Every structure is written in C-alpha cells, then in structure tokens.
C-alpha cells in the first residue's frame, strides 16, 4: 500500500488549501472587512477539521467511502460514497473549467478552451495514474516554487510601498451582518471546508499518531497566510477596485514597477494560478478515484480514465463564464454544506449512538 510521510501530508494540506485562493479576493462581499470574514471562516474550518479527525480516529485505516459504509451500512453507505465521489469529480471539473476560463481571459485569448483544459487534465490524469505517492512528491516540488513566488511578490510589494493599510478602514462599516454573510457559507465552503478531502487521504499517512497535530498546524498556518494575502490585496487595491477585478492578484502585480526592470511579473501570477489549480484538481480527481475504487472494487487503474473523461466532458456543460461563476456561487454553495458539514455530522452522530469505538476494540 502507498504511504506518505507526515511532512508530505503537511505539504499536501498546505498546497491544496492554498490552491488558487490567494489569486482571488474572497469575501469581497464584506468589502474592506473581507479579512474578518476570512478569519471567521478559517476558525470554523478548524472546527470542521476537529470533527473530521474524530471520525477518522474511529477507523484510521478507512477512507471516506469505507467510513460511510461502516456508518450507514453497505448499500446506503456505498451510495453516499459514490455520491461524494461524484461531488469530488464535480469540484475537480470546476477547477478544470477555471483553468480554461482564466487562461482565455488573461493569457491566451484566442486559443480554444478545449485544448487548454485537455492538456491540464492530461497532466492531472497522468499524476492520478501514478498514484498518491507521486502526487505528494510533485506537491513537494511545486511547493518551493509557489513559496518563492509568493515571497517575491510580497517582498516587491513591500519595497514599492503599494499597500496602504488605510484601505482596511473603516472596520465593520455596515455592521457585522455582511461579514457573517460573506463568511458563511461561501468562505467556509471554499476554501476551508474543502479539507474534507483529507478523510480520503489520511489513511495513507504512515505516522498515524501525528495526523491530528500536523493537520491542525498546517491548516492554521495556511489560514494565516490566506488571510494575510487577502489583507495585502485589499490594502493595495481598496475594496472598490478589488471587487470589480476578476484576478485581483494579477492586478496587484501589474502595479509593481521597480527599477525599470521588475515590471512585468504577470508570469509569476500565471504560474501560481496554474500550480494552485493543478494541485486542487488533481487532489479532487484522485479522491474521486479512490472513493469509487473503495465502493465498487473496480481496480484503481481502470477508474482513472473513465472519471477523467467524465470530468472533461462535464466541463463543457456550462455555456460561458457567467454561467460558470453563477453556478459556482449560487447553486454549488447551497449543496456544499451537505458534503462538508451534514454528512460528516451525521456520521459523527450515528457513530456515537452505535458506540463504534468500543465495537472495533472488541472485534
């Protein structure tokens, strides 16, 4: 069986949660208080992780689908597992589509989307076919690249003095309500609640005892980083410009002009965008394959191709970007809590009633 180390798991969590998040100004509905909304959502995300970890501890060798089957019985649990697998595939599809949309918006305006999406999905499928070990190692390689790029952007922003902390004032201009509305469910569902994917991967971690500690630390660190990026973007662009811009970080980086030389750093942002989206889509794709494999017993390698085709095919269902965003923000967000909160919570409750822990000890 494949095994990953605790450091690898930590990097997986970090890279997965960062994903493409810093490129967007999330929680902009709360205007200059976006960071407060982020903080709330991050804290709630940690609570979700506590719940996931409790479920995981009941059967450290079980993946998400196995857990469903244990709690809800073979048939019902299997069906829920498959549903969740579909959900992972759907989320992966959204990232594929994001790559297509953002590339055609910012980078290759005339290139057809199908080729861009096909290529990135092929890279993803190639990784999935190589397995989890290779994927986390690729993550380990991409992590330093992303870290250096973010550090460079932040450093240059500091040197040029673009951020102006006054843009964060006045705090809570319209009271607490808009902040709360921005945080829940939007920000909790994306990105923090997506950590539910770790229920699939935790069983492969070699150091079972350290999972909780490492997960909490990684998630806290990532949350702080995401909030910081949110603050930086806001303090450069101000709430009004940040809300009209589709890729705020690109906007910020375009403003950096230093020594007539470090002017056009768009490529860094583009790179970060692709790295983030690739990691996310691959992790979700892989989670989907793992879940299908666990429920149906179809060999892993035979699952890769059909699910990939499914993801690719479904990425064409939305006619244009407006639909894509609309479905993402209005429809998807209403369904997400089912998978991130409701089902795991149900599992937790069912488990309490069944006294699952005691049962496994005796058996």
């Amino acid at each position: 069986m494949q095994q990953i180390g605790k450091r690898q798991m930590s990097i997986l969590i970090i890279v997965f949660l960062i994903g493409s998040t810093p490129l967007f100004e999330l929680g902009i509905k709360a205007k200059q208080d976006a960071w407060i909304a982020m903080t709330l959502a991050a804290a709630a995300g940690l609570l979700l992780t506590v719940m996931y970890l409790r479920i995981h501890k009941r059967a450290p060798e079980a993946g998400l689908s196995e857990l469903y089957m244990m709690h809800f019985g073979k048939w019902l649990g299997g069906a829920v597992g498959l549903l969740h697998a579909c959900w992972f595939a759907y989320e992966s599809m959204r990232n594929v589509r994001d790559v297509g949309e953002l590339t055609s918006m910012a980078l290759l305006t005339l290139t057809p989307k199908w080729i861009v999406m096909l290529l990135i999905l092929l890279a993803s499928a190639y990784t999935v076919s190589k397995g989890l070990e290779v994927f986390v190692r690729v993550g380990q390689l991409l992590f330093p690249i992303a870290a250096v790029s973010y550090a460079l952007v932040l450093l240059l922003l500091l040197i040029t003095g673009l951020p102006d902390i006054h843009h964060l004032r006045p705090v809570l201009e319209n009271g607490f309500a808009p902040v709360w509305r921005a945080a829940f469910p939007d920000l909790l569902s994306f990105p923090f609640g997506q950590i539910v994917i770790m229920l699939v991967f935790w069983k492969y971690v070699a150091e079972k005892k350290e999972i909780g500690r490492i997960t909490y630390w990684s998630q806290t660190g990532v949350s702080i980083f995401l909030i910081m990026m949110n603050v930086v973007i806001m303090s450069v662009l101000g709430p009004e410009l940040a809300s009209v811009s589709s890729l705020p970080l690109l906007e910020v980086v375009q403003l950096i002009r230093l020594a007539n030389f470090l002017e056009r750093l768009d490529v860094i942002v583009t790179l970060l965008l692709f790295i983030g989206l690739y990691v996310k889509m691959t992790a979700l794709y892989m989670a989907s394959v793992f879940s299908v494999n666990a429920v149906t017993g179809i060999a892993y390698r035979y699952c890769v191709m059909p699910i990939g085709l499914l993801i690719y095919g479904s990425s064409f269902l939305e006619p244009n970007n407006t639909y894509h965003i609309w479905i993402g923000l209005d429809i998807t967000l209403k369904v997400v809590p089912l998978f991130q909160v409701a089902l795991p919570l149900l599992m937790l409750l069912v488990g309490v009633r069944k006294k699952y822990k005691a049962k496994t000890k005796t058996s």
Partner: protein
Amino acid sequence: MSIGKLFKLFLAIVLALPAGGCWNRVELNEIGIVSATGVDLKEGKWQISYQVVIPQAISGNVGTPSSAAAVNVFSTTGDSFRSAISRASQETSRRLYFAHNQIVIISQEAARSGLEQLFDVYLRNADSRETVSVFLAKGSARRMLEQLIPLEKIPGAAIQRMIANEEANSSVFREMTMHDVLFDLLGASQATGIPSLTVAGSSESLDQADKLSRTNTPSKVRLNDLGLIDKDRLVGWISKSESRGVMWLAGHIKRATVAFSCREDDKGLKESSVLVTRAKTKLRPEKSGGKWVMHVAVDAEGTLMEYNCEGDLTKPGDVGKVEKAIEEEIKREMELGWQAVRKHKTDVVGFGGSIRQNDSKAWKSMKDDWPEEFSRMDARLSVRMKVGTTGMSGSGFKKTQKKARS
C-alpha cells in the same frame, strides 16, 4: 489506463497541435507597438489616435539609426473605443499592440463629455495595462501625439518619463496612472485630478524629425494645468501653483523646491528657496457646529538651497525664523490649492475618504451630496518645517560681503 498509453496520447496531441494552428501567436514583425494613445471627440464620435513605434528607425540592423521620425501617428473613429480601434486594421498593415502603451492623452472636449467608456475598456481588457499615465490636453490630443521631443526617440515614453521626473523632483503634478484614476473615481470622493499637456512656444508643430536637427526648437511639449474630474467628467482647471497646494493637501509631495521671501509680510521677492526632501500630511476631520472642519497638519523637512536674507544661519534663532517663513509659504500654497478645489466642488484632496475612515456613520448620511458638503467645509492648516541642513555657508553672500567691507 497505463502510463505509457497516457504518454502516447499526450504525444499525439502535442504532435497534432501544429496542424491546429497557433491561435495567439503573433510575430514581432506583425505588431505595431503603440507608445501613446490619444482620445478626441469629433462630431459626437470617438477619435482614437495612435502613436506607433517604427523599430527600425530606433535600432536598425545596419549602420547608424536613420534620422527619420521614429513614430507614426494616425487616427480612427467609431462610436465605441473598441470599434474605433478595430477600424485601425483598415489603415495599417500591423496589428496594434497596446501592452506597451505608455500614456493616454484625453482632449478637453472628450473629458468634458464623460469618460466611462474609456474606463470600462481598461477594466475589462487584459492587454490594456492600468499602469499607463493619463493626461489631458487643452487642444487636440492627436496634435500632442505628433510632437517630437528633443533627446528622445519615442515621444510617448518621453512624456511618461517627464511626469515621473516632475513627480520625483518638484511635485507640482504627480503621475496619474489609469489605476490611480480608477482608484480615486471609485473611492469615497469620486473625484481626481489629471495633469494636462500643452504645446508651448510658437504655434509651429514639432512634427518633423529634421526640426530636431537645430539646437533649439520653436515649440515644446510642457506640463500645464491640473484638470479636475468629478465622477467621470472634466469640471474645471486649476493652475500650477494651485496644483502644488493640492499636492500638499493630499500628501503627495515627494521632493519640492519652495521659494520663500524673508520678509514677514510676503511682499518682497521670493529670493530664497528650500528643497523639501520629506513631507507628510495628516488629515483629521472634526465636526463643529453642524459643519465639518478638516485639520491639515503638514510635517516637512528640507535643505536650504538658496539664502539671500539678512539672518545669520549659525544662530538657532535665525534658523527658526527661516523655518517660520517657509511654513508660512507652504501654508499660502495650500490655501491657494484649497480655495481652488473648494470653488470647483471636487474633492481631489481625499477629505471624503478621511471622513469615511474616521466616522463612517456620518459619512453615510452625507455621501450623497458630498460635493456641496465639501464646498462648505473649512480647512485648518498647520505646517511644521524643519530645516535639516543649511548648506555649506553660514549667512548669505550679500551679508558676508558687507561684513568683509566693514
């Protein structure tokens, strides 16, 4: 699915790609690099002018660069910006390439009729970079593009450097990039100031390269007044000296030379000057008696550059007097600027933003008629000047001469 198969699929796609063509590919000799754009309003239609760089004239492959003009200017018209730009293909062999556009010049008429269309183009398109500098022109924008600038090959880039130089060294105007403009117009007070360009000197245009072969040119491009934009249209002009006051109020002074007179009553010649090397402006709004008052506190530091007064700079008391004189001068400049913007009811100094940050509730109630509210405001100005260095000689030359005679 085996890895080998996947890899083969990848290879097949890669090999099939050339057949599909290269969608976004454009060779360097297929693009016309636009270095400056002009926006005019002609009979209700937008007239867009382009200053296109001719690369061979700048760095030719063979021998020395030719003495021909390095840019070519032409215009197209249309109801919308993009339709005008798309018409360019009817007159030029190359695709216009805007990513290296350095400046946008907007004519007075165009600015008065409203610029929302222009701003939308910049917000929507990735190839229109928001780092372009924006200028107004009192006359035709196209004529500004046609002017050559001594020492420089590409006028668009030259004007961009001119404003950067101005901002860094005398701070009468500051470079307004499209980002700055959008930022101000989307901000609390929804108003901004944009510097303007004029052709100074004789009416003869400097539009032939051989005119640059003389040691002096009959006319030249110069930065002139500051145009005040409210919402999205031009509402008025303020002069250079008023513009400096606005820069003081808004806290945009980076380096400035302030000329001052030694006489307390401000009647004499301003024969001395100080180079302000650091300046900071603090705004503090206060509501007093149903009326808003803005306390503007400037904290500046500088080096004495010219001194033609009676004082003896080796004495602390006299240095204090000099500082006082400078403070008064700066206050006068600010007062000038403040009266000008108040008259035009355009808040280009950021008072609205300051009130919003300090008292967002009060701001909400009055933001709808902010221009009126703004014009009713009072500004209490205070300046603290610190002369750090007085230069290498103690007292003025005149006084030293007198001393030497006695």
